[in-house]
């Protein structure tokens, strides 16, 4: 590999970040797409760390399997395998556990420390080779000692997998944070005060990886806030040693809504999006909107999808309590802008929001059911079967649309009165 002249990373050498603490990871400058969904304009890094205590060595996370040789070479430059007592896995995704099976072979005295939720995943990862595996599931506050230094675990699940945790080295005030505070940014100068401008990469990583788990981010920050922090050592991107607290505060800003204060405290927000080719679905949308607004305590917003960009709509939906989507059926399907919007929603948490669909059609009317299925797939609750109208809506059908909007609003505010007992066959 060709390094910049001021490179801190060197082949076959660990990089010291503090007394007895080393980076033994790998750089992957050629990667251009991570997990298919993320662009990585200048590659990424797989950060692995080694801690030397008076009574043993700990490894915190490993690297993607193709980079195992670099990881082992760096590890060997500062420690012997026989001294490794502790292997901490903050996150079991393959980019951090690729070298694990080999490491377990080479380090016969090592015990693995993982979160409780990681146990099933660890076994799945190692398949049959778990017979003589020594591991311990740990949670917040539990510790493992390396003699003159101590690792404390913080249970920080769903960032961005159920298994994730952070590990704090008390004596050095270093937080090994896993993917949290990480980014896909490859720079052999390694430290945040030396590398190029990675602000975009940092925010981009948050937006695509952490944003759906906002609530968990805030819970993790509550655990992290009280810690004294000299260095944050994430599993991707620059090591944050210059004013690390800024990144904690920035995460809090990112995880806190930008759109607060618009709605009254007792108000619910419903957003209706539609696409319309002949104006029929648009007329349905207006009737639904009018019906929805006839219920007190619901603030309704109506948008023609054709007139907007997806990104800001995603922001609106993240803050909304109900999402209603209208699409005509064309060639047996909902139209592309509707699917584009739906496929962009994976970056936000929709669990528990209400969803509904409607649309006009000429020949077949599959779009409405397809949208409903997708809404359920996104974990919205779809309480009412959507309305379909053949061609131009009649006054009676527009009244049904009005009632439909009214029903969704009533469900939203909890005032809906419906049959309390149904037969399976009616569903």
């Amino acid at each position: 590999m060709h390094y910049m002249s001021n490179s801190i990373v060197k082949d076959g050498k660990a990089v010291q970040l503090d007394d007895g603490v080393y980076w033994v990871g790998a750089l992957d400058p050629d990667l251009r797409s991570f997990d298919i969904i993320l662009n990585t304009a200048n590659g990424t890094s797989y950060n692995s760390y080694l801690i030397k205590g008076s009574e043993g060595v700990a490894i915190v996370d490993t690297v993607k399997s193709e980079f195992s040789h670099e990881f082992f070479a760096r590890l060997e430059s500062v420690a012997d395998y026989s001294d490794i007592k502790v292997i901490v896995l903050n996150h079991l995704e393959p980019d951090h556990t690729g070298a694990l099976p080999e490491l377990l072979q080479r380090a016969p005295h090592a015990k693995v420390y993982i979160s409780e939720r990681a146990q099933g995943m660890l076994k799945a990862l190692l398949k049959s080779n778990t017979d003589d595996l020594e591991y311990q599931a740990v949670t917040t506050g539990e510790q493992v000692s390396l003699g003159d230094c101590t690792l404390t675990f913080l249970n920080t699940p769903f960032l961005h997998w159920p298994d994730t945790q952070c590990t704090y080295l008390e004596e050095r005030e270093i937080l090994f944070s896993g993917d949290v505070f990480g980014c896909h940014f490859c720079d052999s100068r390694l430290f945040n005060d030396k590398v190029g401008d990675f602000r975009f990469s940092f925010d981009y990583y948050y937006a695509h990886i952490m944003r759906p788990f906002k609530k968990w981010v805030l819970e993790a920050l509550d655990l992290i806030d009280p810690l004294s922090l000299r260095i944050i050592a994430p599993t991707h991107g620059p090591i944050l040693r210059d004013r690390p607290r800024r990144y904690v505060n920035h995460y809090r800003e990112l995880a806190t809504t930008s759109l607060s204060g618009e709605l009254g405290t007792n108000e619910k927000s419903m957003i209706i999006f539609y696409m319309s080719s002949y104006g029929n679905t648009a007329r349905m949308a207006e009737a639904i909107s009018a019906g929805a607004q006839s219920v007190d305590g619901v603030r309704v917003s109506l948008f023609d999808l054709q007139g907007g960009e997806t990104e800001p709509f995603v922001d609106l939906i993240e803050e909304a309590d109900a999402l209603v989507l209208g699409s005509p059926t064309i060639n047996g399907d909902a139209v592309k802008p509707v699917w584009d919007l739906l496929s962009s929603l994976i970056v936000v948490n929709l669990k528990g929001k209400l969803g509904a669909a409607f649309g006009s059609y000429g020949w077949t009317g599959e779009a409405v059911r397809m949208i409903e299925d997708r809404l359920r797939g996104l974990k919205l609750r779809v309480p009412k079967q959507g309305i379909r109208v053949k061609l131009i809506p009649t006054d009676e059908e527009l009244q049904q649309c009005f009632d439909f909007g009214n029903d969704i609003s009533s469900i939203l505010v909890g005032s809906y009165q419906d049959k309390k007992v149904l037969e399976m066959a009616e569903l």
Partner: protein
Amino acid sequence: MAKAKVSFSDIDLTVNVPAGTRVIEVSEKVGSGIVYGCRECDCGTCIMEVEEGWNNLSEPSVLEDKVLRENMAGRHQRLACQAQILGDVTVKPA
């Protein structure tokens, strides 16, 4: 066919079903807040709280038990994609 009854307390709704119906077959259609991931007893997303009629659900399989344990499910919780309704039960999202 034997009849059974499933109530979803989060939406205050009861459905009469043939005995043996899985909760997943009903809950989505009526819009209960129980949500699903893999739908095949692996991910633990659909953990639900059984409020009444615990013994009126089919016994959990070894696999379901394992998934429940790994996801730290509570004492009265089951997977909605697995549990079959055999008698009267009341459930809600966990």
